């Protein structure tokens, strides 16, 4: 079977529609992951042992099981309990929850990396807990986290094709549907691969720059 450029141009508009959904899912998923991760990280630091243990175990469980199965769970099981979600929303929740457990570790490392002396100095200056967090800890903890967070958002971007399994019409699903219509797999699937490769290569450059700009953090 030969590579056919005419066919490539013919299917391009459909694929671009898919790209839009892919990017939308990644952006929304990233925002949700950032929030969920912060919630988990804070809950795990809570003095309440029951809360921190429970959240810790739940996060461990989510991290140890496949994203695809979690997506199925959200998409197929929740409707039985009366929660009917559109595919894209279910997908974004799945991505956000799954990667939230990873970003939680980034937050944890970022907060732990703030030297003890800063906490003690804040106490010595008689700052309240809120003041300590907003003025001392968070401004120092955030910049080193940025490259690590970006790393996970890029990883999430590469997992978005899984959303096609729960009928979200993102890039992979559009590619599969045109492939099934015309019985030509070589162009659509190769284009999807090329698209992810190009974006990933760009994101490597972006990551290097972020690491250079904000410094590294060990997970």
């Amino acid at each position, binding site marked *: 079977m030969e590579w056919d450029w005419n066919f490539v141009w013919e299917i391009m508009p459909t694929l671009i529609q898919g790209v839009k959904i892919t990017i939308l899912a990644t952006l929304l998923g990233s925002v949700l992951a950032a929030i969920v991760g912060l919630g988990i990280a804070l809950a795990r630091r809570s003095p309440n042992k029951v809360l921190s243990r429970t959240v810790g175990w739940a996060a461990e469980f989510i991290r140890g099981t496949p994203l*695809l*199965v979690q997506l199925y769970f959200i998409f197929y099981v929740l409707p*039985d309990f009366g929660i009917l979600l559109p595919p894209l929303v279910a997908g974004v929740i799945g991505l956000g929850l799954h990667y939230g457990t990873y970003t939680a570790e980034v937050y944890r490392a970022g907060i732990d990396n703030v030297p003890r002396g800063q906490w003690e100095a804040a106490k010595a200056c008689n700052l309240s807990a809120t003041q300590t967090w907003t003025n001392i800890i968070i401004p120092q903890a955030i910049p080193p986290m940025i490259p690590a967070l970006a790393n996970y958002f890029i990883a999430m971007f590469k*997992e978005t094709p899984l959303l096609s399994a729960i009928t979200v019409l993102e890039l*992979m699903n559009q590619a599969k549907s045109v492939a099934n219509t015309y019985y030509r797999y070589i162009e659509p699937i190769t284009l999807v691969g090329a698209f992810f490769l190009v974006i990933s290569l760009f994101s490597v450059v972006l990551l290097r720059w972020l690491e250079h700009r904000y410094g590294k953090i060990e997970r």
Partner: protein
Amino acid sequence: MTQWSGYLGLILQGALVTIELTLMGSVLALIMAFLAGMGRVSRFFALRWLATVYIEFFRGTSIFVQLFFAYFVLPLIGLELTPLQAGVLALGLNVGAYAAEVVRGAIQSVGREQYEACIALNLGRWQGMRHVILPQALLIMLPTFGNNAIELLKATSVVSLISLADLTFQAQVVRSQTGNTLVPFTTILIIYFALALIISWGVRSLERRMARGLDGVRV
């Protein structure tokens, strides 16, 4: 009342396929990791370049796309693969690329003085690598390899989409035959988590075994 024992049999068959895939994929990943990881620290430009292209390519495109490429596109250029072969190939090559960076990092993290000692003892490059560098680097790689193996286990769920009857696939079969969603998906989530726990436990005990007698030697 649904006949759960029969369905449990289906799920267990799926678990076997998942375990088989994980094991075979891990072996391929391990081989690729050492080939590409050592390639990246090679003296020869061509080898370094080849290893870098392999790593960036497989880390840059998503596992899902690679799997579809292996299953749908390779037959078109005359390479017919069964779903199992395609699954092992895609999983092994993908995770191998991530693990290759671990190998490279571990080899480079072995102290300079060890390399100098190799030269002082008149060991060849290969001898030094085999008897001095790798035994020390292996211990550094091991925990991250454990994480990679868990990532591979999670990624195996994707093969259900190319009609390989793994855990996720069987859960879908049970869902479509019984109409029940909660039981099959919860069951397989627990099985995946248990498998992940077994991997991390196995790697930890292996690490303890290999570290025996090294106390005080490593810094």
